[in-house]
C-alpha cells in the first residue's frame, strides 16, 4: 500500500468505531444461579483495532469519522452489534442466560466507551453532509453493480433489495473522496466492491480491516 501524500488522518467506518468501544467488563449469568465478571470483547477485531489505534496515535495520525455516522452508531449501531454478537456463535457464553436487560446493560457500557472515545484528542468527528448530486452519483454507481454476481450474492446474503449503502455510509465515501482520506472499513458494502469503488473514484481509498496484518502498512 502506497500513499500519494503524507497521511495525517484516517477515516473509520462505523464498524471500526464499534469494535474499538466493544471492550468492557460485564457481569454475565453463566448458570441458573451463578454470575461472573468477564472482560467482553468483540473477537479478533477489538484487539486488532486497538493495535491499529495505538500505532496511529504513535505516528500522530488522527482518526476521523463524520457526525451522521457517529449519531447513527449511538442511535442504532451499538444496539445492533450487541444483539448480533450475543446471538452469534462467537459469543463465548450461553446466550440463554442473557436477557434483554443484560443486552441493554452491555450496550449502555459501550455508549460510555463511545463518549470516552469522542473526548480523545486524536479522534475527530467532522460535521459533513454531501451535496445531493454527489449522493445520487454514488447511488447510481451502486445500482450499476446490480448486474455483477458479487452484488447479487451480497444482497441475497443481507436479504436486501437496494444495492446502495445507507445514507450515512454514502456520505462517508464522499467525505473520503473530498478530503483525500483513506477509509478503514470492515463493511461489506465497501470492502467487497473496493476495486470498483476506487476504479470509479467514488472514494479516495478503501482499506479493508481484514487485510491489515501489520498496522505500519497504513502509513507506508
Amino acid at each position, binding site marked *: 500500500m502506497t500513499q500519494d501524500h503524507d497521511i495525517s488522518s484516517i477515516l473509520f467506518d462505523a464498524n471500526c468505531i464499534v469494535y474499538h468501544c466493544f471492550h468492557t467488563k*460485564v*457481569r454475565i*449469568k453463566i448458570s441458573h444461579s451463578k*454470575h461472573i465478571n468477564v472482560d467482553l470483547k468483540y473477537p479478533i477485531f477489538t484487539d486488532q483495532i486497538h493495535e491499529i489505534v495505538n500505532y496511529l496515535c504513535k505516528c500522530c495520525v488522527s482518526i476521523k469519522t463524520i457526525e451522521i455516522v457517529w449519531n447513527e452508531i*449511538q*442511535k*442504532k449501531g*451499538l*444496539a*445492533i452489534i*450487541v*444483539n448480533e454478537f450475543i446471538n452469534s456463535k462467537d459469543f463465548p457464553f450461553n446466550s440463554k442466560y442473557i*436477557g*434483554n*436487560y*443484560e*443486552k*441493554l*446493560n452491555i*450496550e449502555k457500557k459501550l*455508549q460510555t466507551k463511545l463518549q470516552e472515545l469522542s473526548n480523545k484528542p486524536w479522534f475527530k468527528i467532522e460535521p459533513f453532509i454531501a451535496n445531493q448530486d454527489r449522493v445520487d452519483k454514488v447511488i447510481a454507481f451502486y445500482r450499476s453493480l446490480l448486474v455483477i454476481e458479487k452484488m447479487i450474492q451480497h444482497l441475497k446474503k443481507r436479504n436486501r433489495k437496494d444495492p446502495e449503502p445507507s445514507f450515512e455510509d454514502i456520505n462517508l465515501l464522499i467525505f473520503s473522496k473530498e478530503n483525500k482520506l483513506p477509509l478503514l472499513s470492515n463493511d461489506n458494502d465497501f470492502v467487497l466492491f473496493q476495486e470498483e469503488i476506487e476504479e470509479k473514484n467514488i472514494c479516495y481509498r478503501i482499506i479493508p480491516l481484514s487485510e491489515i496484518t501489520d498496522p505500519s502498512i497504513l502509513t507506508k
Partner: protein
Amino acid sequence: MNSLPRYWPILYILYKFKEIYGHFFIQKYIFLAKVEEGIPIKYGFLKNSYGPYTVEIKMDFLNLREQGLIDSYFSFGLNAWVLKIKRSGENWVDENINNIPQKWKDKMDKIINKYGNWSRRKLSDYVYEKHIKSLEQDQQFIDELKSDCSIFIEKTEPLLMSHNALLLQGSLDLIMRLLRKAHILEDPIKREQILQNIKYYLEEIGQTLAIIDGKETIITELNLNDLEEDFSLIEEIYEELEPEAAQR
C-alpha cells in the same frame, strides 16, 4: 454485629419472656420486629394459613433445643407447646448481649412490650389486617402489572433494533423479573412503593408505544432521556433485591 447467628432473635425473645406458649407467638414477634421495626433479621417469611411463617425459625428452634439452649414440651393443660429458655441459653444471651446493637434491642423490646400480652386471636387478626390483607391486594396489583408488562413486551418485540428499542425491551425484561420477585418483599410500605414506581414506569412505556403506534422506524428518533432516567430508579430497586446480578 455480623457474627451474630441468625437465631439470635429466638433466644433474645425467650430470654425476655422466659417461656412462651406456642411457636405461633415466636414467629409473629420476629415477623413484626422485621417488618414494623426494620430489624435486619435474616429469616424470610412466607404466607401460610397461620399468617406469615418461616420454617427456618422452626429449624433453628430444633437445633437450639438439640444444643441444650432451649427446651419445649407439650402442655395438655394449656393445650399448647411451652417454649422455654434454659440456663445455658440465658448464658448465651448474657455473653452476646453486647454484640446486639442497642437500637435492635430497643426495637425488639418495643415489639415485646407492644404485642407481648396480646392474645393469639388478637395478634393473628392484627397481623392479617395490617400485613397479609395488603399482601393479597398487592398480589392482585402485581398480576395486573404483569399482564400490562406482557402486552408491552409483545409490542416491543418487532421494533427495529436501536438504542431506544433496547431500552424498552431491556427495561420491560427487568420489570417482569421484579414483578416475579415482588411478593417476597415483606415490608408492605416498600412493596407498595416499588409497585407504584413500576406502575408509573409502565405508564410511561405505554405512552411511548402509543406515539410509535406501528410506525416502527420513528422509535430511533425519539428522545427517551426521561424514561432512561426513571429506569435507573427501577434498576436501583433490582440491585437491592438481586445484588448478585447487579450489573452497574
